[in-house]
C-alpha cells in the first residue's frame, strides 16, 4: 500500500434514505455519469478516485451504501473507519429530511468522534418540487455542527465542490491530528461512548476537538495551512 502513488488516503461513506441519489452523486463524481433509472444499491458499492489538491495526490475511497433498512447492519460496519460521512437527503422529499436525526443517532453510535459530517441536499434540478427549504436545512446543519451543501447529480451542480472541499478539510484535519498526536501522548482506542443520551455531550466533545485543532493550528509552522482552513470555512 505504501508503495502506491498518493499522499493521503481518505475513506468517505455516503449515507441517507433510499432513493435520495447517493449512487448518482458518486457516479457523477467518479465517472462523470448520470445513469438514469439507477436501481437500488445492494449492500455497499465501492469507488476510488484520486484527485490532486494543491499539488498533493489524494486518494478518495468512496463507499456508497444502500439506503434500504435491511442493509443497515452492513452499512453501519463502515462508519467507524470513515474519515468523512456525507449525509444525503432529497430536497423534494420531506421524509428523507425528517429522517436525518435518526441518521445522526447512528453516526453518534457507530462513527469515530473525529469524523467529519457533511449534510447534502440533492436533486436541486427539481427545484419546482422542493419540499425542504434551504433555510430549514441550513438551520438544522448549523445546530448539528455540520457543513451543508445543496447539489444536483443530474446537472452536476456542486458535486465536484462537495468532494474536493471535503478532501481539503480532510487534509487539514489529518495534518493537525499528527500534530496533536505528537504533542499529547496517543490514547488507546477512540474513546467512543456508546449511548443514545450523549448526543449533546458529544457535540460538546466535538466542539472541544475542533478547539484543539484550532489551537494546534497556531502551532503550525506554516501559516498557509491555517489560511487553507479558513478558506475552507468559506467554501462550505
Amino acid at each position, binding site marked *: 500500500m505504501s508503495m502506491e502513488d498518493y499522499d493521503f488516503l481518505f475513506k468517505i461513506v455516503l449515507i441517507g434514505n433510499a432513493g435520495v441519489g447517493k449512487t448518482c452523486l458518486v457516479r457523477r463524481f467518479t465517472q462523470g455519469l448520470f445513469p438514469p433509472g439507477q436501481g437500488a444499491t445492494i449492500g455497499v458499492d465501492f469507488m476510488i478516485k484520486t484527485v490532486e489538491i494543491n499539488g498533493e495526490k489524494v486518494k478518495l475511497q468512496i463507499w456508497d451504501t444502500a439506503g434500504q433498512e435491511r442493509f443497515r447492519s*452492513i452499512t453501519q460496519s463502515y462508519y467507524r473507519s470513515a474519515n468523512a460521512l456525507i449525509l444525503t437527503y432529497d430536497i423534494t422529499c420531506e421524509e428523507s429530511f425528517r429522517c436525518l436525526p435518526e441518521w445522526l443517532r447512528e453516526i453518534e453510535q457507530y462513527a469515530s468522534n473525529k469524523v467529519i459530517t457533511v449534510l447534502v441536499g440533492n436533486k436541486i434540478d427539481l427545484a419546482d418540487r422542493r419540499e425542504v427549504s434551504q433555510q430549514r436545512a441550513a438551520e438544522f446543519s448549523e445546530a448539528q455542527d455540520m457543513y451543508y451543501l445543496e447539489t444536483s447529480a443530474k446537472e452536476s451542480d456542486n458535486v465536484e465542490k462537495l468532494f474536493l472541499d471535503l478532501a481539503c478539510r480532510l487534509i487539514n484535519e489529518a495534518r493537525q491530528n499528527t500534530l496533536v498526536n505528537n504533542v499529547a501522548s496517543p490514547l488507546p482506542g477512540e474513546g467512543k461512548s456508546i449511548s443514545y443520551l450523549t448526543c449533546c455531550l458529544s457535540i460538546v466533545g466535538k466542539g472541544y476537538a475542533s478547539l484543539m485543532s484550532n489551537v494546534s493550528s497556531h502551532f503550525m509552522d506554516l501559516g498557509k495551512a491555517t489560511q487553507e482552513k479558513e478558506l475552507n470555512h468559506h467554501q462550505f
Partner: protein
Amino acid sequence: MERIRALTDLRELEAAYGRLCAEEKVVEEELEALLEQQGTIENKMVALHRMGPNLQLIEGDARQLAGMITFTWNLAENVSSKVRQLDLAKNRLYQAIQRADDILDLKFCMDGVQTALRNEDYEQAAAHIHRYLSLDKSVIELSRQGKEGSIIDANLKLLQEAEQRLKTIVTEKFDLAMKQGDLPQVERFFKIFPLLGLHEEGLSKFSEYLCKQVANKAEENLLLVMGTDMSDRRAAVIFADTLTLLFEGIARIVETHQPIVETYYGLGRLYTLIKHLQVECDRQVEKVVDKFIKQRDYHRQFQQVQNSMMRSSATEKIEPRELDPILTEVTLMNARSELYLRFIKRRIISDFEVGDSMASEEVKQEHQKYLDKLLNNCLLSRTMQELIGYYITMEEYFMRETVNKAVAMDTYEKGQLISSMVDDVFYIVKKCIGRALSSSSIDCLCAMINHSTTELESDFREVLYNKLKLGFPATTFQDFQRGVTSAVNIMHSSLQQGKFDTKGIESTDEAKQSFLVTLNNVEVCSENIMTLKKTLESDCSKLLSQGFGGEQAQAKIDSCLSDMAAVSNKFRDLLQEGLNELNSSAIKPQVKPWINLFLSVSHNIEEEEFNDYEANDPWVQQFIVNLEQQMAEFKSGLSPVIYDSLTSLMTSLVAIELEKVVLKSTFSRLGGLQFDKELRSLIAYLTTVTTWTIRDKFARLSQMATILNLERVTEILDYWGPNSGPLTWRLTPAEVRQVLALRIDFRSEDIKRLRL
C-alpha cells in the same frame, strides 16, 4: 551602344572592350555547339519524314478497330439484354412455381388440418397451421384474387377456424394433462404451442405446470420439517436443508427442460421460463423462511440482542452460545441461496448470449437489465438480505460477548509465555469471520471483517492497554515511591476484580508476571492479526474464484482487510510503549545504582591498586552478574523477540548511564587502562546477550576509553582529523577536551593548546 559612345575615359573603354571580347567568345562557343548539333537534327528530320506514310496506315487501322469494337458492343448488349430477360422470366417462373406450391400447400394445409383434427393428430394439425402461418401473406391475398377466389376464401376461413379451434383444443388438453399430472401429454402440447405462434403462452402454461410440481414437493418437504425430531442429526440446519431441496428441485427442472425449450422455442427463452419459476420459488422461500423465523424465534432473539447491545445492562442478556446454531443455519441458508442465484444467473446469461449473438447492443443491455432486475428484486434476494442484516448484528454481539468471556476467563499457565485469552479471542474472531465467509455474501463478510477490526482495535486492545497501564511493579527495596504506587495499583486492580489479595509480595510477583504476559500477548496479537489477514485473503480468493460477488468484491475485501492489518501496527505501538515502561520502571531503577557504584571505585590509581583490582575486580564483574540476574527474569518471561528489544533498550540505557558516571570520575594513566579493561569485559558480555551488534551503542564510550588511555595529551592528534583512519569520531572536539581533562596527569594548558 549609346553607353559605349558616351565612354571617354581610356580605362573605361578598355574595360568595355575586354567585356565585349569575352562576350564574343562566349557567343562563338555557343554557336559552335549549335552547329555541331545540326547533323543529328537533320538525321532526325529524315527519319521523321520516313515515318509519315506509316502514320496514315495506323490511322486507318485504328478506325477499322473502332468500328469492330462498336459492332461487338452492340452485339453483346443485344445478347445480355436477352439473357436478362431470360433471367427475369426464370425468376418469375420460380415465383410462380413457389406461389403455386404455396397455394397448393395452403390447400393441402386446409385439407390436412381438417383430417388431422378429425384424427386428433394435433402435431400434424399444428404443423399445418405452422406452415400456413409461415406463408407469405401476399400469397394468400393472391390466391384469393384467383379464379377460384371464392373457394379459397371459404377454405381460408375454415383454416382460420381450424387454427382457433386447435389453439383452444391444445390449451384445453394441456390444462387437462396438467391437472392429471400427465407429463408426456404436458410435454406433447407444450411442443405444439410454438407451432401456433404461442411462445409466451406455452412457456407460461408449462411454467405453471412446473411451478405446481415445485409447490407440491416443497409442501411435502415443509411437512417433513415440521415433523423432524429435534434429535435428528440435521435438525439444527433443517431449514437450510429445506431451502437446499427447493433450490435443487428447481435447478433440476431447469436442467431437464432447458433442451425442450431450446429445441421447440428457440434460444433466449430460458429467461421467461425461469422468471415464472422464480415466482413460485419466492412463494416457497417465503413459507420456509416464515416457518424458520417462527420456529427458531429469530426476530425475538434479534430483538433481545439489540436490546442488550443498547442498554449494555446485565439484565436478561442473551447467552451468546445460544445464538451459535442459528447463526450457522442462517449463513448456510444464504450460501444455498447465493449458489442457486448464481446457477440461474449463469444459465440465463449463457442462453441470452447465444440467443443475442446477432442482436444489437441495446437489446443485449435490455436483457442484462431484465436479468439484474430478476436477481435483485426477487423476494428470495430480499428475504435473504433481511436475514443476513439481522445475522450481522447478532454475530457481532456473539463475537463481542464471547470475547468478553474469554477475557474474563483469562488464565495463565506457568511456563507459557502468553495467557489463554489471546488464542481464545483469535479463535472467536476467526470463527465469526469464517462463518460470515461461509454465507458467500461479500457484503456480509466485509461487515464482519469491519466489526472484528473494531473489536480488536478498541475493545480488546483496551483490555491489554489497561493491564499494561498498571505498570511493572518495582521491587520494594529499590524504589520506595514506585513500590507504593504499584502497590496501590495492585490493590486497585484486585478491588476491581472483586477480590482483595492480602499477600503483598505474591501479588507483586503476580503483577510482574501479568505485565510480562501482557507484553507477550500484545506481540502475539500483532502477529496473529497479520496471520488472520493472510488466511482470510486466501479464503476470499477461493470464494471469488468460484464466481461469487460482483466486480468490486475484490476491492472491497482488500480495503477491509487492509484496515484490519493496520490494527496490527497499533498493537506494535502498544508493545513499544510497554517495553519503554518496563525499561524505565524495572530496569532503569536497578541498573542506575549499579552503574553509580562505578563512582565509588577510584580510577585514580597506582600500580599496586591496579594489580589489586586485577585480583579482586572492584565493579564490572559484579555489575555483569547483577545484569545477568536482572535480565534472566525477563528472558524466561518474555518471548525472544520482545526480550531482544528489551535488551536493546537496556544496552542503550547502560551506555548512556555509564557515560554519565565516567564524566564524573577522574582517572590516572592506569585508571584509564582499568576503565578500558572494564569496558571491554562489559561489551564482551553484552555482545553475548544480544543478537545484534552493540558496538555502535558503545562507540562513544570506547572512544572515551581510548582518550583516557593516552600517554600524552598530544597523542590524541595521532587519532584525530587526517590521522583518524577508519575511525569515525562520535565525540565533538569539546567532548574530547572534556574527557582529556578527566585525566589528572594531563595539564589543562596542554589540553587548551590542542588544535582539534
